[in-house]
């Protein structure tokens, strides 16, 4: 009961760099449990160097505190399980696409344009505005776009 409520609250927290995608759908929540008066959430970073992870940790803390004001809350970041792109849920992939970011493919050449869905795309730079994305150009609809890096 409480656990379901806990997941609902975590689903409200988003990555500040991808505001439409919840951290649950990004696969960042490795564990969440309620034991008596204690709530423990374990988050895993998408990229170790990602500066958003600390902000996300704080946001989770704030959201949980607001919902469970009498509980002791512990939110930790760990590398216990390495995050990988196959942790992104189907909902997450759809939300990425709606944000104009191509969801990760099997490799760097397997990328469909988020605007026209065609595969006639060209990798322009392995790095883009954040650690987790690469820069592409769609030859079909002539839009530049970013794609989530396969990891």
């Amino acid at each position, binding site marked *: 009961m409480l656990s379901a409520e806990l997941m609902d609250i975590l689903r409200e927290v988003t990555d500040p760099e991808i505001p439409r995608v919840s951290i649950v759908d990004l696969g960042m929540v490795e564990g969440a449990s309620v034991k008596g008066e204690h709530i423990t959430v374990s988050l895993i970073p998408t*990229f*170790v*160097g*990602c*500066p958003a992870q600390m902000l996300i940790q704080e946001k989770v803390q704030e959201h949980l505190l607001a919902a469970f004001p009498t509980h002791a809350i512990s939110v930790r970041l760990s*590398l*216990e399980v*390495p*995050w*990988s792109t196959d942790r992104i849920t189907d909902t997450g992939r759809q939300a990425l696409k709606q944000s104009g970011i191509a969801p990760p493919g099997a490799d760097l050449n397997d990328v469909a344009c988020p605007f026209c869905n065609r595969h006639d795309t060209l990798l*322009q*730079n*392995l*790095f*883009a*505005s*954040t*650690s987790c994305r690469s*820069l592409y150009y769609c030859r079909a609809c002539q839009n530049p776009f970013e794609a989530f*890096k396969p*990891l």
Partner: protein
Amino acid sequence: MARTERRSIQEIKDVPDLRVATQAVLFQLADDDMVIGFRDQEWLGLAPHIEEDVAFGSIAQEEIGHAAHYYELLSQLDLGSRDDLASLRPAEERRNSVLLERPNGLGTYLESPHFDWAFTIMRHYFHDVWEMRCLGALTQSAAIELGLAADKILAEKRYHRAHQELWIKTMLDRGDEQSQERVKKALADTNEWAADLPDFGGQECLFEETRIVPGASTLSTSFWQEIDAFTGALGLPRPSGTVTRLNGRRGQHTPALQEALEVWSEVYRLEPGAQW
């Protein structure tokens, strides 16, 4: 040697040999990433084109983020806070390779920055290959947290190395004669200062005995093999041998490191521990 059981940093703290080895390899990794991340971010606004400006900024951020993670592990050995370790240690306590503290070129970020893109990329490529060699060994480390960090960061570093490889190939294949000459010079300049990069400052035996860095004494050879295979395939002659100069792994540095430290820690020193 029999496979030692793996231990957590909390357990390692009280075992002198393991502690010394863990600390030593972490300081090298952290200080390398911190100083190369600093050199990378000096390119902001100056990279060859706008997309690359954004891309290289992301690489800088990742280097500093990786350094932050290594410093965090050091702080778990009760060596001080992560931010203090990054910003307050004097040059002689730093264990980064001298190659990585070399300026990006002539001038400074604020005054006539005549930076050398070919050198920046070539030097970064050497750094990426070396860090990946270390991380590859660390995936089998007796220290649990080093193994976890290695698994994760290795996957991210592949993109760094691929980015530099692509630039080197592009400058050779698509560039004119001047561009090709610059790449050759970049390789010579990088090579000249690279002696202390694939080096553990004489601690290879300790690293191997404690299994903190399994196979530590073989990494230098495999590093040079990878460099030579890549440059050889491109027809780039690497000058034979490096020039032995200062060894950053033993705390010896050029004045360039001190100058860099003054810039990157200037604000932090105003009020260490302030919340931003």
